[in-house]
């Protein structure tokens, strides 16, 4: 991708993550997921899209368009919300944890 993109690629892959939301009592319902950005590392703060939280809003999606609503506190979603964040090795192994000789990507059984 050329030299001009080196720093951006590193920043992007270190900050990139996947966020998934599911219901504690109803895992069979499946999960909602989207992408996200790691904003800080200690503690790990992540910014992601709000669309995956709509099914969990106590007041329904109408709460998002209520007049003057610019933010909703965390407890505006139900207690059965379970969130998980997953990121790649570059984000976690900041210092020297590369396994020499291992390919970056291969065709895992998916």
């Amino acid at each position, binding site marked *: *991708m050329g030299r*001009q*993109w080196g720093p*951006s*690629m*590193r*920043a*992007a892959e*270190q*900050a*990139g993550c*996947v*966020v998934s939301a599911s219901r504690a009592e109803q895992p069979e319902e499946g*999960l*909602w*997921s*989207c*992408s*996200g*950005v*790691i*904003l*800080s*590392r*200690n*503690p*790990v*703060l*992540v*910014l*992601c*899209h*709000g*669309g*995956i*939280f*709509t099914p969990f809003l106590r007041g329904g*999606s*109408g709460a*998002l368009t209520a007049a003057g*609503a*610019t*933010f*909703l*506190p*965390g407890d505006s979603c139900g207690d059965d919300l379970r*969130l*998980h*964040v*997953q*990121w*790649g*090795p570059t*984000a*976690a192994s*900041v210092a020297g944890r590369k*396994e020499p000789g291992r390919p*970056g990507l291969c065709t*895992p059984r*998916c």
Partner: protein
Amino acid sequence: AGLEPCKAAQPHGRLLQPPHAAELLLLLSCPAFRAHFARLFGSEAAEQWRFASAAPDEEVSGEEEEDQLRALGWFALLRVRPGAEAEAACGPAVTVAPLGAVAKGAPLLACGSPFGAFCPDIFLNTLSRGVLSNTAGPLLLTDARCLPGTEGGGVFAARPAGALVALVAAPLCWKAREWVGLTLLCAAAPLLRAARDALAHLPDVAALAALLPPEVGTPRGLPLRGPGPPWAAAAVLVEFGSVWGSGVAMAPRLVVTCRHVAPREMAKVLVHSANPKSVAIWGCVVFATQETSPYDIAVVSLEEDLEGVPMPRPAEYFHEGIVASNTRDNNTGATYPHLNFSIPITVLQPALQRYHQTGDLGGLRELDRTTEPVRVVWRLQRPLPAIPRSKL
């Protein structure tokens, strides 16, 4: 549908971190983004826009689609439970480009995970390059390809190097059932300011505001729209009744556009230019190729000069041309603007020059008599094999 979540990679694959539990701190939106979105896409006339991640003909309930639209400008701030390895690292994970620091046309890098958590081994942090295609306050558009699941993914600039510019708000835009190859973004700087304001209202997490990443690089004057790159100034909007399309100003009173925009010779069209100032000038269609010609071209002569518009200098050799048509999949109705039949400007240049200097349309008339190979390509057909003649 039909996708199954993948388990974390097998040991011989890419070592993904196991998912870490997290908590929702708050849901937030950028008021300015929502105001611009409502202004651009919320009116009756703009009703044909859709930002749902499903293709127009996929079954999505009206309620579900409404939910998606309501959530379009909303983002979530999460805190990962203690114990996650990343905690060992120190310092901000990203820096943020102030609103206005990245100019229209500048290169961007989108990083998201298509299909979200369904197959992170393959799709986690997929990169896609594009440019900042257009802006309206914190509402940005890019032509970097983004797929469903990349909502919330980061979009980064080459300059300032690696700075976060925006997050993906809607990867797919549909207009009148046609996929418009642009992705809707929400600028990161105003969004993080909104996050700081919101955290200040929540005493038990207010201290986290200090951990949000700083803005780096100085904004280049606002509004973003600025003059943009000089070659962009030659792009004009051509309006003929209810039909509109793009065109290129080749001389102060000469505009080239497509025949399907200005189909009839001697018809009057209105040409809009936004750079250096917003003007609308009437013009007359002096030439339009016939429907059967592969060269979907029309030439407009303006009633006044387009003042201050830098005129493009046609290239000697070509690998670019004027976009004459997009490619449309008649089965799904999707149109792919990045798959085009383009006409090399060197094919048009001699005829345009002859008309510009002498007013003679002869050279342009030649465009109606093209060779068969060009016609076959235009029709996206395979060249017909030479059919052996029967000796009977």
